[in-house]
């Protein structure tokens, strides 16, 4: 508090000095460091949340800069992993808190590892499969999470409190078809900021313990069409829900239900995850790939291989992104040809 940096926030009476101390003692897990993730992590870091863990599987590209507020042209130029760049920037914003970036794809093993000691999970992902995973983990470990989603000029958000509200599976039913998740219609930055404004405010309420202040509705808006809706969804809670019902099975925490390949949102890219987590020896792989008839570029976090009009990005955590295809079989055969199982 030496620099009085939180004075305007502690003057706000629902937070106050007591609330500020609670924020300092809190640990928030932010899953995804794209548009929603960069926006909300900056809000929470500036607000003095004591520990932030940020997980993201991707690296910075030029098309991110229009809305992903923590990244620079240099990050895009050098293909810096988002979790690395976000951690670096947020540490400049607030050096008094703990910030950990993890370059990883969040699946069962990762969520069970990262959820330990966490007070709240913020959904900043771009797909429903990961959200269902967060939803099950939230129920199993009794940690609240806040859904956020946006495309075009609209967005929506809902706060899931285990044992108090319906869960995401109650509201959504099954996972929508993949086409639904892809942002082919684009996105404007204000839609992102509107979602994170709501997510962050709900986060503050939870972290300072003001549960009575929570919104308790599914909130929807369209900033361009001037639409909004705030729906009370308490009646949608289902006793037979496999995630939050009377005898939950947490289906999305079952590894057998997890895909090993994923088509990335709107990117014409397939991600391949090895069956087990391991740390790839990038320098050895780089030497091997340099013997091929292609172009190899590397930074400490990943290798970019361009060969035969294809492009692959190989991460230290074992994952590979195959660009220029939506076809999983094509992606797998390229993976096997150049990198191997």
């Amino acid at each position: 508090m030496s620099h009085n940096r939180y004075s305007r926030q502690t003057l706000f009476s629902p937070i106050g000095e007591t609330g500020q101390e609670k924020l300092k003692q809190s640990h928030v897990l932010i899953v995804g460091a794209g548009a929603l993730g960069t926006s909300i992590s900056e809000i929470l870091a500036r607000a003095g949340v004591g520990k932030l863990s940020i997980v993201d599987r991707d690296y910075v590209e030029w098309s991110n800069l229009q809305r992903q507020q923590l990244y620079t042209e240099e990050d895009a130029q050098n293909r810096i992993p988002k979790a690395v760049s976000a951690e670096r920037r947020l540490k400049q914003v607030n050096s008094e808190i703990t910030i950990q970036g993890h370059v990883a794809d969040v699946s069962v093993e990762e969520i069970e590892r990262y959820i330990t000691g966490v007070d709240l999970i913020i959904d900043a992902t771009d797909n429903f499969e990961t959200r269902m995973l967060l939803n099950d983990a939230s129920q199993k470990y009794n940690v609240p999470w806040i859904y956020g989603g946006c495309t075009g000029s609209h967005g929506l958000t809902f706060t899931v409190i285990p044992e108090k509200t319906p869960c995401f599976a109650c509201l959504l039913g099954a996972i929508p078809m993949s086409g639904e998740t892809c942002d082919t219609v684009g996105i404007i930055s204000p839609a992102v900021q509107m979602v994170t404004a709501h997510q962050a405010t709900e986060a503050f309420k939870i972290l300072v313990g003001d549960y009575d202040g929570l919104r308790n509705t599914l909130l929807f808006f369209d900033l361009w069409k001037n639409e909004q809706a705030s729906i009370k969804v308490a009646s949608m809670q289902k006793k037979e829900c496999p995630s939050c019902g009377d005898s939950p099975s947490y289906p999305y925490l079952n590894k057998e239900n997890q895909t090993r390949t994923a088509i990335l949102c709107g990117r014409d890219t397939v991600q391949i995850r090895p069956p087990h987590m391991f740390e790839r020896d990038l320098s050895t792989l780089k030497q091997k790939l340099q013997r091929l008839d292609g172009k190899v570029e590397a930074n400490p976090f990943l290798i970019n291989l361009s060969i035969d009009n294809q492009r692959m990005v190989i991460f230290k955590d074992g994952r590979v992104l195959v660009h220029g295809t939506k076809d999983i079989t094509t992606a797998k055969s390229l993976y096997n040809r150049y990198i191997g199982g």
Partner: protein
Amino acid sequence: MTLTINGNAMDVPETVSSVSDLITHLELGSKRLVVEVNQEIIDKSMHAEQQLTNGDRVEIVHFVGGG
């Protein structure tokens, strides 16, 4: 008839009489939705049965994956 949809007045053609018709009219048929009519949530199984009348307040929210 005129409905208030997500806070805005909208004229819908006469072919729209049920919640299902409205969803089709708005081209939201392929999406995961939450529908509320006059502050009451309409379960998906009731969309075809639930009739709409002039002046109804309808909230239609579809889940989006982007982020």
